[in-house]
C-alpha cells in the first residue's frame, strides 16, 4: 500500500495512521482526553488530505469506551465535514459496539477489496429483460437485475448483487470479487446452490421453508442467511 510510506507514527498526538489493504486505519490511543484527540484530528485533517479522498478509513478505538455524545461529535466535527469514507468502527468495549450498531454504523474488520469500489459503481448495473435458459451465462462487473427467470443450468455471475425478478433455479454468484456485503434476491427461489463472495451454500432443497418463495440472501457473521422476502 503506497500510503504506508506516508504513515505517521506520533503516539504523543494520540492517533496512529496505518496503511492497510483496504485503505487507512486510524488507531486512537486509549489514554488521552477527548479534547486532545479532537485537536489532533483537526491537525491531521489539515495535514493529510488523502483522508478526505476516496480511500476508506477504519476508526479503531482499541479499548476506549465511547459515549454517544463523543461519537456524534466525531461525526459532526471530523467525519462529515472532512467527507471521510468510514469503512468500519472498531472498539473492544462491548457497550460502545452496541451503541455503534444501534446507530447503524458498520462494525467489524473490513475485507480487502480485490478491485476498487469506485470502478465497480462506475460500471453500473446490467438489466436483462429476458429469461436465461440452460447453458446461458451472464457475467457482469456490477449489479445484475434479471427481469425474467434463471432456468436450471443457467449461470449469473456479478461482482455486485444479483436480483432475479422471476424464478431462480440456476446458479447465482454475487460478490464475485470476494465482497460479501452483496445480496442475492429472487422472486421465487428454487436453486440447488447459491454463492455469495467466497461462500457456497450447502444442501439447499425443497424441504426448506422458504423454498419456492421470494427470498433475500445475505452474508452475516461469516454465514449465508436466507430470509423469506416480505414486502
Amino acid at each position, binding site marked *: 500500500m503506497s500510503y504506508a510510506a506516508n504513515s505517521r507514527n506520533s503516539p504523543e498526538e494520540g492517533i496512529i495512521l496505518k496503511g492497510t489493504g483496504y485503505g487507512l486505519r486510524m488507531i486512537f490511543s486509549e489514554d488521552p482526553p477527548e479534547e486532545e484527540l479532537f485537536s489532533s484530528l483537526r491537525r491531521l485533517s489539515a495535514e493529510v488530505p488523502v483522508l478526505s479522498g476516496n480511500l476508506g478509513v477504519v476508526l479503531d478505538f482499541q479499548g476506549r469506551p465511547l459515549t454517544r455524545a463523543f461519537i456524534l461529535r466525531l461525526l459532526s466535527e471530523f467525519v462529515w465535514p472532512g467527507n471521510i469514507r468510514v469503512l468500519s468502527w472498531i472498539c473492544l468495549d462491548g457497550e460502545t459496539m452496541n451503541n455503534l450498531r444501534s446507530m447503524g454504523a458498520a462494525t467489524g474488520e473490513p475485507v480487502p477489496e480485490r478491485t476498487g469500489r469506485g470502478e465497480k459503481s462506475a460500471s453500473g448495473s446490467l438489466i436483462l429483460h429476458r*429469461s436465461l*435458459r*440452460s*447453458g*446461458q451465462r451472464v457475467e457482469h462487473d456490477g449489479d445484475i437485475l434479471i427481469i425474467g*427467470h434463471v*432456468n*436450471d*443450468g443457467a449461470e449469473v455471475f456479478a461482482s455486485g448483487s444479483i436480483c432475479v425478478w422471476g424464478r431462480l433455479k440456476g446458479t447465482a454468484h454475487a460478490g464475485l470479487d470476494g465482497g460479501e456485503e452483496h445480496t442475492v434476491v429472487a422472486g421465487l427461489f428454487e436453486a440447488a446452490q447459491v454463492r455469495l463472495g467466497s461462500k457456497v451454500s450447502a444442501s439447499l432443497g425443497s424441504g426448506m421453508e422458504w423454498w419456492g418463495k421470494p427470498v433475500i440472501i445475505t452474508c452475516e457473521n461469516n454465514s449465508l442467511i436466507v430470509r423469506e422476502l416480505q414486502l
Partner: protein
Amino acid sequence: MGKTTTTSNIAVALARGGHRVVAVDADIGLRNLDVIMGLENRVVYNFIDVLEGTCRLHQALVRDKRVENLFLLPAAQTRTKDAVNSAQMEELCAMLRKEFDFILLDSPAGIESGFRNAAVGADEAIVIATPEVSSVRDADRIIGLLESMGKTPIRLVINRLRPNLVRQGDMLEVSDVLDILAIDLLGIVPEDDSVVKASNRGEPLTFTDTSPASKAFQRIALRIAGEDVPFPKFDEDRSSGFFAALRKFFGRTE
C-alpha cells in the same frame, strides 16, 4: 427423446394429409430414420452423395410406396458428422425447398456440429421433450441455442406423457413443462406401447388411426399444416380404480 420416431410419424401423417413431404435423416453415422420408416432395404445413395456430386437428388430420394408424396433422404452410415458443413446443409435445404411442401430434418442428439448443421437450414424448429426434469433441462438448452440461431417459431412436443404418473405427482405436468420452457405447445403424445412395436416393424403408427399416440401425431401434423386443433385431456386411465368404479356405479360414462 423420440426425435426419429416423431419425425417418421409426422412425415407419414402430413403425407397422408396430401402434402408433399421429405424426411431427411441428419444423423450422419448413426442413421435410424430409414429403419423406423421401414425403408432401409431401399437405400442406395444418401444426401452426402448428393452434396459431393456422386448422384443427383432424385437418385438419393427414397419414395415410400405406402403413401403418395412421402420421401426419405437418408444419411450416410459410414461417415461422421464432420462430413458436411453448414453451407452444404443450407444448399441441400434450398434444393429440397423447390420440390416439397414440408422438409422434416431429423436432428442428431447433442449440441455439437451435427445439431447445428441440422438446424442451420431450417426455418422453424420442433423440440421434443419428455416430462422429466433432465429432459426439460436439455430442451431448455436446445431452445436457447435455437433462439440464438434465430429460428422461429420454436414449438414443443411433449412425448411419452403418462397421465397416471402425473396424477400421482411422480411426473411433471404439462403446465410445469410449459412454464419452464415458455414456448408454444405443438402437441402431447401419451406413452403408448404400440410406438415401440411400430418402430421395430418399420411401420410408423400414423399409417393407422387406432392408437392414442397415432392420434396425437396426426393432431400434431394438422397443427403443423396450420389447422387449429384442440388439445384433448389425457385421462384415459379412468377405467380402473376406486373413482372409476364409483362412476360406473352411478352410471356415468366418459
